[in-house]
């Protein structure tokens, strides 16, 4: 087990290098002049200014040169300077990453929780009204785009009914707690302010719910199908023959076996949620990586684009690793020696 994790960890640097190389190659084939984001249109006609800007930002160098320089800088944690914010990309990303991770984690918990619950309920009461309702909920979540759902629910719950707060991570009048983890829910707890914690949770509810709903559908369908299959296995009859009640049969015997294949999908949906976070953050004014990525892409801010892509890729790799380890733990049959 330890050997397996170690082998996987050793492979990580190579995978990260692959991500960096690929990202670099992709930015080199994109159309559009990054200078447009650095200097004004009027200055573009001035060859001297253009040359100076190119030299200042290293755009006069060839792609391989830039690649090597970038790698060298990255070793010391330097991801370059954003064309737009004029701050180090690493600093920008680190300031925004926790907000995204908090949103995605909350969405994951909600999505997996709701998905598993819906799936189990639908499987146990299959072909009844409960099953049809669960299917409808899953379909809505999976087929309505996050940005539309976000806007619609924001309008209904916040503007129309006023039961949920508007955009943002905290009430505008609230004082932000000192940043420790960057997770608003954790920081408010560390600050010992339970009311503020409640407020942060309250603000997290709608964006995380909307985002999580988008994966809950897929998860619930998968759980339902697996669960039905598992409930027909012989060991379920054995459990009943032992005198186990239905609740115990479902939760202790069937669910545990259902979760083994479901774990992989939950892991992959984390990556899907990271992508979905871009749109959700824009709608809910969430100061995370998503909104940063959007402005970087709009302004052809190459250092920021590459930085965000690499960080996103690394998160994806880590998620994959955690998923695989969880799979091995949950499924004793594939446990390596």
């Amino acid at each position, binding site marked *: 087990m330890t050997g397996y994790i170690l082998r996987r960890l050793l492979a990580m640097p190579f995978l990260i290098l692959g991500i960096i190389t690929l990202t670099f190659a992709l930015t080199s084939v994109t159309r559009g002049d990054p200078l447009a984001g650095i200097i004004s249109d009027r200055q573009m006609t001035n060859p001297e200014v253009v040359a100076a800007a190119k030299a200042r930002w290293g755009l006069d160098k060839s792609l391989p040169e830039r690649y090597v320089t970038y790698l060298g800088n990255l070793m010391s944690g330097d991801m370059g300077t954003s064309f737009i914010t004029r701050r180090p990309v690493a600093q920008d990303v680190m300031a925004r990453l926790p907000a995204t991770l908090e949103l995605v984690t909350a969405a994951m918990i909600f999505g997996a929780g709701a998905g598993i619950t819906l799936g189990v309920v639908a499987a146990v009461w299959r072909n009844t009204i409960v099953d049809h309702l669960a299917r409808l909920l899953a379909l809505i979540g999976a087929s309505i785009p996050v940005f539309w759902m976000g806007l619609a629910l924001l309008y209904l719950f916040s503007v129309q009914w006023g039961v949920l707060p508007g955009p943002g991570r905290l009430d505008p009048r609230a004082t932000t707690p000192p940043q420790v983890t960057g997770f608003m829910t954790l920081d408010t707890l560390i600050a010992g302010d339970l009311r503020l914690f409640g407020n942060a949770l309250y603000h997290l509810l709608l964006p995380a719910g909307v985002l999580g709903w988008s994966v809950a559908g897929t998860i619930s369908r998968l759980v339902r199908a697996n669960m039905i299959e598992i409930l027909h*296995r*012989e*060991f379920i*009859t*054995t*459990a*009943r*023959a*032992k*005198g*186990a*009640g*239905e609740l115990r049969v479902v939760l*202790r*015997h069937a669910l*545990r*076996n259902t979760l*083994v294949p479901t774990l992989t999908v939950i892991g992959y949906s984390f990556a899907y949620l990271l992508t979905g976070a871009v749109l959700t953050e824009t709608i809910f004014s969430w100061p995370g990586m998503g909104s940063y990525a959007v402005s970087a892409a709009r302004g052809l801010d190459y250092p920021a684009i590459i930085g965000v892509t690499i960080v996103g890729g690394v998160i994806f790799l880590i998620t994959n690793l955690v998923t695989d380890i969880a799979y091995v733990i*949950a*499924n*004793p*049959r594939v446990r390596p020696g």
Partner: protein
Amino acid sequence: MSHTPLFEVSDLRVSFGRGAAAREAVRGLSLSLAAGEVLGIVGESGSGKSLAMLSALGLNPEGSEVRGSVRFQGREIAELPRAALQKIRGAQIGMVFQDPLSSLNPVMRVGAQIMEALYLHNPRLTRREAEERATELFERVAIAQARDRLRAFPHEFSGGMRQRVMIAMAIANTPALLIADEPTTALDVTVQAQIMEMLSDLQKRLNLGLVLITHDLGVLAGYADRVAVVYAGQVVEQAPVHALFARPAHPYTRGLMAASADLSQPGEALYSIPGTPPPAGPLPPGCPFAPRCDRAGAICRETPPPLRRAPDGAAEARCHFAWQDGECR
């Protein structure tokens, strides 16, 4: 056997589907078992023998309906609410199934599965006591290094070992009745005998009533006291084991015997009964075995055979020609 039988099934019917579309698979099966007795139930796959036993304990598959009477220790259990039946299952009635690999939960340690059987019927058992008891059970079914093996997962065991785990689980709460559904069919031939020996030994020591479901008459010859032959969801012949082998009354029983491998005559093609058992649903009039029977006469295709009793009263068979010398061998 004039006293109350341990387990008595009367006119058990299991059907799939509802109303006019209902198709019967078990068609009025009746049998009884005394305490400490070994009753063999034999029949081809699809004869309804396993379905009948599962249904008697309320473990019938989804979408099926069970009617009839099931009495355990004199108490009617067919109509019991689910919770009351759960108290009996696993406590007074244990079950062992055919394939121990698929019958054990693959993601639970075997010890946990045994201890679950204990906890379910003794909620106040402490962890230590349960572990102690599980170790004893493992020793009882001859699993070496019992305490360590409790922590293993089912896939870490061989087939025979897994079936020992199943048996340990079935007898965990010292039941009065054990229903073993083809307990050796999925195992290697060499292991089959060991498992049967062990089952038989446990049966004697714990004075278990044992229902041994099998399609192998040979197994029954060595271990059963009485045999019930099931065809098309009915008992077509029931007799003490020696009487059955000495003088089988039903042509189906004779067919099963002829189909058993006889190693004393190598080179001979194995006999098989032509045709297949009828599927669930309505049967043609007359004897359900008539289409496959080489002795069937006109009456067999028209009138369902009555249950005939042997002259000595110990055996019965559902055949027009049973015990009528001349007509039937």
